[in-house]
Each structure stands twice: as C-alpha cells, then as structure tokens.
C-alpha cells in the first residue's frame, strides 16, 4: 500500500482512498454496507459466496468487493437492482440445502445466513430441497471428539472454517474434499478429528457463520440473545488472550469467543481458553470458609475464620518473629491481589518471605535477563513476531504451552518464509515443522549455545559495532567460549555438528532474529546460566532492541509477569525495586507508614526445607498449590505438615488447601475486576464475567480483612484504587490506571499518564543497566545435578500438555478436557520401550530416588532415546513426586527438567 490516493466513484459520489485497499473496505469507510458471508477479514478472503458483488463500470461481470482492489477511476454501483437480484439469488442458492431448523439451532441469533435471509426477506429458498430442509440426511463422519460438533447439512461451504484452520490456527486439520456439488469440509480420509493434527482451538467454530460448527459443551446452553457477554482476559497461560465470555441466566459461563480485534490474540484461542472456563461453574467451588478441627474441616463464618487466622498469626509472630511466617502470592491472581499480598507480608507481617510460583518457572529469567539486560521481561511484543526472519526457539513446547503464540510463529514461517529453528530434547509439534531441529540432551543448553557462539565468533559473524557500543564483558566471554569447539559440544549435546553450524549462520546472518524460550531453559539448576547464555547470543549478534530482534521468554501463567512486577518476590518491591536498596525501602516505608524489613526473604522453593527445619512456622497462601507443583513433593509435604499454621485462599480444596488450618473461599479470575500483565508486559483489564459465588470474596479483600484485624488499616473501594496506589509507587506502572486500560492494554514501562507504553525494550541498544550497556557474561557448562546411572538409567523431564494446566485444579474440572485426557502418561521412545518390553498403553512404574508413581506408557516419537516425559497435572500420578529439588543457586528454581529415573512394567 502506498500513500497515493485513488479516485473512485461509488454510487455516484466521488471519493478518494489509499491505493491497495479492497472495494469492500472502501465502501465500509464511507458507510456503505455490503453484505458478506464467506469473508472474514485477514482470515478468509475466498470470494466464494457471491454476496458482496457490485457493478463496476466496464466489467461484464459483477465484481466481488472482498477480493477486488480499487483502481483509479473505478465507478462502482452497490445498490442497483442487478446487484440486489444477484445477491438475493446467491443467498437463495446458499439456502438451497440449509435445513430450516433455526428453532433448535444453537446459532440462532448468531447466524449470518439467518440475518441475511431476514434482510432479503427470504422465507424459503426457491431452490430449497424440502427433504434436506427438514430431515437429516448427511452423516458427520469426524464428529467423535468431545469438543467440536460438525453438522455438514448446515454447512454452506463458505470455507471460513478451513481458512481459519489454515491461516489462523496454522494447522490444516480440515480442508475441502471432493469437488463441485459433492465438495465438503472434511478431515483427511474422514478421520476422526482427534486422529488429525487438530489442536481443538475451535477457530473453525468461531469462524463459522452458521451453526454447522458448534462447541459441543455449548449445545443447548442457550441462544446468544439469552446470554450476557463480558470482555476479559483468558486466565490460563501468559499469552493473555482477550476473550469474550458468555454467561447464562443461572450465572454459569457457557461459551467463549476470542476477541477478533485484539492486538494480542487476533481472535485466536487455544483449547483451554476456548473450553476451560467451565471450572468456575463447578459444584466443587468453595463458598464457605473452612476451619480444621481434629483433622477435619468444618464450615464456618467469615468472622470466625478471620479471627482465628489473625489470632494464630499474631501468636506465631510474637513467639517466633515475623520471619517465621511465609506469604505466597499467585501468578493466577491479579496484579492488585499480588500487590496487596506483598504489602501484607512486608508492611503487616513484617517479613520479606513472600514469593509466588514464578519462582518455579521464570526465576531464572528474572535473575538472568535482569543481570544481562537490566530488565527481566520479554523484549518484544507478540505482534512483532511477524518481523523476525529467523525464529530461534529453545526449550519451548509452545504449541502446547502457548498455543496462540505458536500460531503466530508458524504463521510467520509459512507466510513470510521466516526460518524456524527449534532446539528441544523432545521432538515437539513445533520441532516437526521446523527448518532446523536440534535434539540436544536435557541440561546441555549452555554447551549448545556456547558452541553456536563459538562458530559465530570463528566465522566473524559477531556484530562488532553493537558489541562495542552497547555491551561490556565481551573479552572475558570470548576466553570461555574458545573452549567450546564443535567436537566437544557435539559430544556433550548429542547434536550433529552440521546443525550447530547451520544454526549459528542462520541466526547470526539473519536481518532480524528473535529468540523464544520457556521452561526448557529456566527449570534447571543452571537456569540462570542458560538465560545468560541466551542473552549472550542475542548480544553478540546484536539481535536485540528493535523490531524483529529480541528475547522473548514466554511466561507460563496468566499473571506470572504481573505477580513479579508487583513484588510478590522475596527481594524486590513493585517494579523490581530492591528491598536492600535503602532509597527504595524508604519510599515504601513512607507510603505504607511502617518500618520495613531489610533482609531478602525466602523463596517458595525454600519454604519446604525451612518448614522442615523449623525456621518457618506459618504460611499464608493466596492461591498456589505447592503440594502439586513443588519438586519432590513428598519432601515438601513433610515440611508443610510440620507447620504450626497454614492459611489458604482458594477456589477449590486443592492439595495444599487440604493441609490447611483455615481455608478462605475466593473469587476466580473470571469473576474479578483487576489486571493481568501478560508475557509481553501488556497490562490488561479483567472484567467480571459472572457474579462470584455467594460466600466468596476477592483475594485482595480477604487479605485486607486479615491485615486490618491485625491492626494495619487496609481498605480499598475496588481494584482500580489499588492500581492507582501501585502507580504512585512503581515507575514502570506510573501511567497505568484502570480507566486507561478500558481502551486496551498498555505495555510497561509506562511512566506517565499520557505515555502510550513501551512496545520494545532496550530500543536502539539502550539498556536499563547503570551505564546503559548490556552485560555479556562468561558462562561455563555445568552438568545437571542428577545424571542417569546404572540404577536410574533414564532421564526424566517434566512439563505441561496442551489439554491440562498446572496442578489440574481447573482443567480437570472441565468435563471435555478431562474426558479427552483423563489420566497421566509417560512418553517413551520406541527403542527404550522395546528394550524394557513395554507396549503402548501398558501400565508402568516410574521411580526416582525420591519416590515412584504408576501410570500409562505411551510410545511416542517425541522423546529422544534415553529420555522420558511426564506431565505434572495429575494428582493420581504426580510427576513432582519424582522431580529433583536441586536449586539454581541464584534463581532458586528447581531442576524440573532433569532427573534420573527408572521404569518398570507392572
């Protein structure tokens, strides 16, 4: 598109438009409505339905406005009888095979075909096949899954679903089969959807203009006009997809839609975002406070529960001092909740023992990127993915953990031809479509990255200008790197030299290159080293600080970025202002009107040991479920059992809540007002999509009550007021207020009320470190803490799967998700399985030095020989019984990704 204006006449009036736009767009701009059916902006531009046709002078046929660009001097007529008749005829044709069962159709009121029929006054198509209109004739051959219902008889073959699958989800599970009047939307060979590449994101459903594709759980739950809709943010991973939730008259959530003009997800959702809302409706929701007496819970009043908690906390604080109490914030709770939680710990209890589960996922990022770049967050926004020419993905199974981001990555590869490099010990779905796939051994990332950088240095591909102008520490770094010659690296990592060389060249030579990483990098005893290595790679090549160049750690939970930003960490206040910094401390002391502790507190990964040793006597947890998510949970449980007092705010009686002395029933994210900060630092507003259950309170509200009863006056009208307080104390959030977020999210740093936010960090190589330069650090490869041996010969690596989420408390209460993946399994390579005489779906026992679990074996091409994978979502076979609690010395993140195990058939 150029800036040149083009003269076009529409319905007799002269207009000017920028060149390159479609007639449809031009008409829209001047308020002329054109009916469409097959068109879905940016997703489906087929020009198949023939509804949007207009007359263009000089053309023998009518032109489709959705695919025809305007041209100089074009004369367009949109309202002639010829145009009207053609549109009406095409609509009658579309209705020829469409059943007339609007009365029982779930899309009634939400159907573009119905709207058009109404508009054109078509009661019954003159081509209507009476038999098909009232009788069901067509079979639905690929309909056996719990998620998506397909009714081919209602299908008008507009192809929006197929295009959504291809262009939005980048999956191509469905396509058009056969031809002409026989053509149909189909899976290959009519396979059931679950046997195709389908990810069940239901983009097809959202794209369907009629009721041919419907989410199964939504069937019969009410028509669109009976539902109330709310725009909010998805509460699962850190992508922060904007979502519209629909609730029925019973206050149950029944449907979701991705918000199409969202800058974050552009209408996409993943299977969890699409279907995972159901847990909030669950009968298992806690609605009354619980107090444990003689080992059993009894329901109680808020007053009693609060009094009891306050009494116990007071006693413990008086007896053992404030540092005997630990407080947990939560990445599943809002910024406002987390701000209150850390304020509670610091100002009310008087301890820095406050942390959140970010410790278990991206503590290494905070430590590593903080050290190297001066800011511990993703540098570039999600929408910037399209600017990268090389996408370097390491330790990220993003198609399962951040499905929507993976769509943009795949889209950039497919549509712009960007190169995709994937390094992962498991051959993930993304690895399968990658241009270079490196399958290195778990825990050898530093060696691999150093090897890549050695080649970059040897081949003279270092961006010397950038290194000189914007970094320090290069010389020391080179000394260390020189040891990592290809042979050594190839041996350590188990990767072909050619691949390492090619990766180095592609990445270094790319005009724009972005690195993406996730837990495969961070969850190691050398997590911080891994992150530093990644920073080194970006710095020596200068691939940072501009469009398409950056480092994007993908955050795992909806508000894991925010919980850290809010200072729910043992060593920093909001916005990473250090507790050991007297200036910062003084600022907070003044604002909170109390003396604050100076010493950094304990990390959540140290809570278990501290409880066991008696250092920690009480824990107050907002959300969080450490008894599922901590490594070596049997050990942690022992510690928690020794606690004198454990209070938990929860929506369900989680594994941790079961152990508590007091449980407070809390509101869920979809019931809250507040903000989440997503993986790209975008602070987004949550709006309550349903009434919170009677008897529950907001998390910040509960803590405020406890604080006030403890003698610290804490009272807020609403979350917006809390955010205003955050803004006054946090430079990077200074311009962020709820009223501004109404119009859309803002990326921090946002220092002023009129600041639009910051898209790209470290722009033009100005880093947030004292001298403005980034730090290149020498990093040596250190082996994982527990390596396979004779007794435990196999490497166990753990992580997330697409259909479940974390400790499973939410997703396992979503019927369709739990029905689809009802139990845990261990993924094992074919060769290993054969050696151990294990068949697909056999029950096996997996043991480590810490414990053992029994679960199903699945033979899979994903893990490398000698490596197995288990997800951690299932309490019946909890992977964290097995994991090693070895911590990274700086980030204190446990080594979830490497443990030695053995497998036996049972």
């Amino acid at each position, binding site marked *: 598109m150029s800036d040149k204006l083009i003269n076009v006449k529409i319905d007799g009036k002269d207009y000017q438009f920028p060149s390159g736009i479609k007639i449809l767009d031009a008409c829209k701009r001047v308020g002329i409505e054109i009916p469409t059916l097959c068109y879905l902006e940016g997703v489906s531009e*087929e*020009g*198949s*339905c*023939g509804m949007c*046709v207009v007359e263009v002078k000089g053309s023998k*046929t*009518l032109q*489709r406005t959705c*695919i*025809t660009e305007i041209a100089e001097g074009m004369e367009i007529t949109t309202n002639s009888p*010829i145009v009207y*008749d*053609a549109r009406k*005829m*095409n609509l009658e*044709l*579309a209705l*020829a*095979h469409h059943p007339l069962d609007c009365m029982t159709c779930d899309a009634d009121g939400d159907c573009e075909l119905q709207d058009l029929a109404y508009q054109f006054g078509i009661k019954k198509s*003159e*081509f209507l096949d009476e038999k098909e209109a009232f009788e069901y004739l067509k079979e639905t051959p690929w309909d056996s899954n719990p998620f998506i219902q397909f009714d081919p008889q209602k299908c*008008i*073959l507009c192809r929006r679903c197929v295009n959504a699958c291809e262009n939005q989800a980048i999956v*191509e*599970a*469905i*396509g*058009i*089969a*056969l*031809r*002409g*009047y*026989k*053509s149909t939307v*189909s*899976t*290959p*060979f009519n396979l059931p959807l679950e046997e*195709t*590449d389908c990810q069940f994101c239901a983009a097809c459903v959202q794209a369907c203009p009629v009721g041919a594709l419907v989410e199964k759980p939504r069937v019969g739950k009410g028509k669109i006009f009976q539902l109330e809709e709310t725009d909010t943010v998805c509460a699962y991973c850190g992508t922060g997809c904007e979502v519209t939730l629909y609730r029925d008259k019973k206050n149950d959530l029944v449907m979701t839609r991705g918000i199409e003009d969202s800058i974050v997800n552009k209408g996409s959702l993943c299977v969890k975002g699409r279907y995972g809302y159901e847990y909030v409706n669950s009968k298992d929701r806690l609605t009354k406070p619980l107090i444990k007496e003689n080992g059993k819970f009894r329901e109680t009043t808020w007053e009693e529960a609060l009094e009891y908690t306050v009494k116990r906390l007071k006693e413990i604080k008086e007896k053992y001092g404030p540092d005997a109490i630990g407080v947990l914030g939560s990445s599943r709770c809002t910024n406002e909740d987390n701000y209150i939680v850390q304020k509670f710990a610091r100002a009310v209890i008087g301890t820095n023992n406050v942390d959140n589960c970010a410790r278990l996922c991206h503590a290494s990022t905070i430590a590593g990127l903080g050290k190297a770049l001066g800011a511990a967050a993703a540098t570039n926004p999600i929408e910037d993915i399209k600017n990268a020419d090389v996408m370097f993905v390491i330790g990220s199974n993003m198609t399962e953990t951040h499905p929507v981001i993976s769509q943009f990555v795949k889209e950039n590869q497919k549509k712009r031809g960007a190169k995709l490099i994937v390094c992962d010990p498991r051959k993930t779905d993304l690895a399968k*479509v990658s241009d270079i796939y490196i399958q290195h051994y778990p825990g050898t990332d530093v060696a691999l990255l150093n090897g890549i950088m050695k080649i970059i240095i040897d081949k003279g591909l270092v961006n010397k200008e950038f290194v000189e102008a914007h970094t320090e520490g290069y010389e020391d770094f080179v000394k260390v790197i020189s040891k990592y010659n290809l042979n050594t690296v190839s041996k350590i990592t188990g990767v072909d030299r050619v691949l390492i060389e090619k990766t180095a060249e592609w990445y270094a030579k790319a005009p724009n290159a972005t690195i993406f990483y996730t837990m495969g990098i961070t969850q190691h005893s050398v997590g911080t080293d891994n992150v530093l290595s990644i920073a080194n790679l970006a710095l020596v090549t200068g691939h940072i600080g501009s469009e398409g160049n950056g480092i994007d750690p993908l955050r795992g939970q909806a508000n894991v970025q925010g919980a850290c930003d809010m200072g729910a960490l043992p060593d920093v206040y909001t916005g990473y202002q250090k507790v050991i910094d007297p200036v910062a401390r003084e600022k907070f002391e003044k604002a909170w009107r109390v003396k604050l502790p100076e010493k950094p507190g304990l990390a959540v990964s140290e809570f278990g040991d501290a409880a066991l040793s008696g250092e920690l006597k009480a824990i107050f947890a907002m959300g969080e479920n450490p008894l599922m998510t901590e490594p070596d949970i049997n050990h942690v449980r022992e510690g928690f059992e020794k606690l004198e007092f454990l209070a938990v705010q929860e929506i369900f009686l989680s594994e941790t809540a079961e152990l508590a002395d007091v449980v407070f029933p809390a509101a869920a994210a979809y019931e809250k007002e507040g903000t989440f900060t997503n993986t790209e630092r975008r602070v987004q507003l949550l709006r309550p999509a349903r009434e919170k259950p009677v008897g529950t309170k907001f998390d910040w509200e509960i803590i405020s009550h406890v604080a006030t009863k403890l003698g610290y006056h804490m009272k807020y009208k609403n979350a917006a007021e809390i955010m205003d307080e955050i803004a006054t104390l946090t430079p990077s959030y200074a311009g962020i207020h709820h009223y501004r977020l109404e119009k859309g999210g803002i990326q921090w740093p946002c220092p002023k009320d009129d600041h639009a936010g910051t898209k790209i960090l470290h722009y033009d190589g100005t880093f947030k470190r004292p001298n403005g330069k980034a730090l290149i650090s020498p990093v040596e490869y250190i082996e994982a803490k527990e390596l396979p041996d004779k007794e435990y010969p196999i490497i166990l690596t753990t992580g997330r799967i697409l259909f479940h989420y974390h400790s499973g408390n939410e997703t396992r209460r979503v019927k369709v998700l739990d029905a689809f993946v009802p139990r845990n399994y261990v993924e094992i390579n074919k060769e290993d399985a054969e050696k151990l005489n294990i068949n697909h779906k056999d029950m096996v026992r997996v043991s480590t030095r810490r414990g053992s679990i029994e679960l199903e074996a699945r033979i899979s091409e994903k893990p490398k020989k000698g490596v197995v994978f288990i997800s951690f979502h299932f309490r019946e076979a909890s992977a964290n019984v097995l994991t090693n609690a070895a911590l990274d010395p700086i980030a204190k993140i446990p080594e979830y990704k490497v443990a030695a195990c053995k497998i036996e058939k049972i």
Partner: protein
Amino acid sequence: MKGKSLTDALHDIQSGNKENYIPEKDTLTISEKSKVSLSKVYGFATFYSMFSVKPRGKHIIRVCKSLSCHMGKAEEVIEKLEEVLGVEIGETTEDGEFTLEESSCLGMCSVSPAMMIDKIPFGNLTVDQIPEIIKKVKSEGSQEKIYTEQILPAQGRVVLKSVGVINPESIDEYIASRGYLALKKAIENGPQWVINELKKSELRGRGGAGFPTGRKWEFTAKAPGPQKYLICNADEGEPGTFKDRVIMEGDPHSIIEGMIIAAFATGCNNGYIYIRGEYDLSIRRIEKAIGDARSHGFLGRNILGSGFPFDIEIHKGAGSYVVGEETTLMESIEGHRGEPRKKPPYPPTFGLLGKPTVINNVETLANVPPIITNGADWYRTIGVPESYGTKLFSLSGDVNWKGVIEAPFGTRLSYIVNELGGGVRNGKKLRGVIFGGVSGTLLTPDQFDIPVDFNSLVTIEAGPGSGSIIVMDETRSIVNIAKNIAYFFKYESCGKCTPCRIGTEQLMNIIDRILEGSGKESDLEVIERLGQDMRLTSFCPLGQTAPNIIVQSIQKFRSKWLEHMKYNSPQKLDRGIRCMLGCQKQGGGKRWQATCGRITIQLLRPGWPWRP
C-alpha cells in the same frame, strides 16, 4: 519447482497400487516428504476424477458422457457395460477386474461413442462389441490401439501441415520438413524481433479469448525478475474438442518449437506443458519429442549454442475440466485443488508460483514456428483483418464427416459444415450447431452463414471458443442436450463459489424435473434468472458460461421446452409420447420402468428415458 509434482506423485502411487487407488498410508508419506498437510493432499486427491482414494478394479473403464458421445448413444453403451459387468457406474465388479466410471469428455468426439479402458481408447463403439471387448481385456489385458484422427487433405494448412504427413515420433522427419528453422531464425534475430514479428502477425490466442499473443509475450518479457515461466495449456477438455490432441499426436515438435521460441522471446527458463491425463498418446509423443529435442540441443542449458537455457516438463493432468482455465491450471501445477484465482493480477505479472508467466494454448504455440519461418507478412495473407491465420475446428455430432478441419479465419460456418463436413448426416435437416464448445454458443440455421472470425462472431454475441462444432439434426431433443450440458457442468464445477456450485446443480435439477414431466413454464424463467446470476457472479469462466447454451436453447427453442410441459399430466401420456417421469428399478434385473400414474413403460435405463 523442486522434485516431483503432487499430481505425479499421486499418479505414481495409484498406478503402482494393485487396487488402482491412493491409500491413506501413502498420502501420509507424501505429506511428510513434501510438507504439504494431509488434508491438502486429501483435498487434492479427491478433487481430480482420475484419482481414487477407494480401492478399484484392475481395469478402469471410463465411458465418455460428453455431448458428442451422448449424441452417439453413449447411454446404450453404458447400459450394455452395466449389464455385462453387472455393476453400475462407480462400482467395481465382484472379481475385482473392472471399475466402471464415467468421463466428462475423452476428446474422441469424432469416433463417438467412446470409452477408455485403462489408457487405451475405444471409439465408434457399438453395443454388440462390448461383451467381446470386456472378454478380451480380461484375458489379455488392455492393448495398445491408435486411432488416427481424420483430417482434411493438406491444402493451405498452416498448423496441420505436417500432421499425417510426417512420422510424429521422428524428429528427423520434423527437421526435414523445415522443422526448428524458426527457432534458429528467432535466435539469430533476438527476442525483441520475435515479439515484434508476433505483434505484426496479429496472432491471437486460440484458447478462446483471442488475446493478442505478441502483447501477452511483451508483458511477460517486460515483467521484472529473473524467474519466469512458460506454460503450454494442453488441458483440452471442452466437450466436442479434440484439435489440440491432433497436433500433439501428429506433430508434437511444432508445439515444442513454439514453446522454445516463446520462452526465448519472453525470457523464461522453465516451461511446462500441462496435458490432460486422458491423453495418454499425446503425453507419450510429447515426452518423446522433448527427449529428442533435448538430445538435439533444441532444449537444455545452451540452446543451439546461443547461451539461452530452457527446458520443458510435462505436467500430466488427473481429470478436471476447470483446470483448463489458466489460473486454475497454475494452481494445479502447484499442487493445489483445481480452483481458480482472482484476476487481476494476470499471469504475465503474477502467474505460476507468483512469478511472471506466459500461458498459451497448444494451437497458438503451433502457429508460432510458421509465423517465424515465413514471416508476419505471409501470415497476414491468411484469414481476414483482425483474425489472421487459420483456425482448427473439431467437427462432430450429426455430420457426415467428423474430424479436425483447418480453415482460414473468415470461412463461413455453412461452408465448414456443409462443404468440408459433408452436411448433416442422413440427409436430415439442421436444428442447430453448438459452436465453440458446450460453454459456447447455440447457433440456429439462420445464423449459419456467419463468417467465422473474431469480429463477425461478436455481431451475433459469439466467439470461436474452442473451435468445436457439434452439429444437431432436426430430430435432436434440445432439452435432452441441455440436460447433458447441465450434467457436465455440475460434474465439473470446482465447487469454490456458490453461484456455480449450487447453480449448476440447480440447473440440472430443474431440467431433470422438466424431463420427468413435472416442469412448469415458470421453471424456464427460473433458469433464465439463474443463468443471468451465474453469468454475472460466478468466480470464473466455468460458472459464467455454464448456462450459455441452456439459456440460449430456451430463447431459441422455447416451444421445444414447452412441449415438455404439455404432457405433464398422466392422462395425456401414452406410448407414442416419450415418458418424462423418473424411473424406478424393478426387481434385480436390468429392466427399467417409468411409472406415470396408471401407465408403466419400459425404458432404456434410469435417468435416460429417451433415445437422443
């Protein structure tokens, strides 16, 4: 393009498969190798009629249902085949020997009715031959048999001058008949000279639209970028048309030479010739010709020592009429379903794989060597202004002499049919001519004296189209012909756009209804309105032209349509008047009956109540 095309890969799988089909596991391998998703491979495989994803018999029988064969009593052949094999269309015999299929057109219109068993064509079929043919194929397999197409004697021929004269499989004979001289001349004089000569000759594309070839080449020559493609469109599929096949089978080097000259003029280094899968002999002859041309240095990295590199790949079609549309053809080469692209952009700027592309019809390219050899001035002595040169006509139907005729533009249609074609068969009177293919024009006897050239035809809202001439005598039922055409388009519509996908189907439904005797006069108005809508809003020329003949037949022979309305009450029906009702199968035999109220009539077969 890298590696084997998707079409070739699927052809290979299918021909290597005992049950003549493409199994799921093989598509998986292709999908993984080619990084094309399985759903795309499946969508592709199920689009083309020559591919099957279900097991079939050892031999595939394809019976031609084109209009020419329909007029040649193809229905009787089908019925006999069904009887002999004991299966219906689309089914496989119990012993797994034969699968009976129908084809939209085998391009054997002059020897109708026709069929193909595997790759072998059988023409001039009579019902009596069927049992013997089946028996023979079963015992001996399908054997080579070549039909030499009839062409008129070599006087004043330009394109066909060597067809039937030289051995098409001998490059030496081609060279001896002044072959590849044009190429030498072109290379001596340079690309711009070639384009100028072409422009001067005013050669117009023979694919139907008549766009000036020289200008088309010039666009591509001027288009930026090093990678350009040349495509020869040899996907001749218009029912009643077989003239491209005659050139390919009779003088393949003339096309190759035309392609090389075109590539030289426009700067293309890669060429494709897209030949429909049904034309096995054409494929083999072109393949041989390409190989010979290569070994003689006419193709390759350094053509005739000029430094100009060019080579040609054959792309074998797999059964689809719409692929003959140029953008659809390019989609098909790229390994996509045969669905048209939006135009503009046009191929000279955005063609194959998004690169500038020249795409010309076989006949157009075969015109190039004579123009270059003899010069544009010579060429302009043939034909009439704005329509220089000759045109090939495929003559079939109720005419005494059937075959390919080359005549200068401006020749009167009556001369072609009556003088060259020997007039209407059996001395009957002429009812009309379907001119330019079934997507062309229905001409009535009063339009018979029209000179056949671009400008004259425009005056009667017609064009040369594919150059096919299907002659109908006075006994032909116009409604039945309309039904055959409607069936063809319904079967061949790609299904992308609603007006065509459902429009062609509804046209068929309405005509069926009329033929069944339950039509109303208002149905004719519906056909006309629907036809208008399809013409105005179909995505590509297939849908835009599908209603042409049908609507024209209503306009020109309304009374013939109305006859069918008169007898739509059972009381008026008797044996003397043909039954128009739908048929019901009775018992297990091969007897068919139509029930019209109280009367039951024995019929030929379901859906074919009349003899044409």
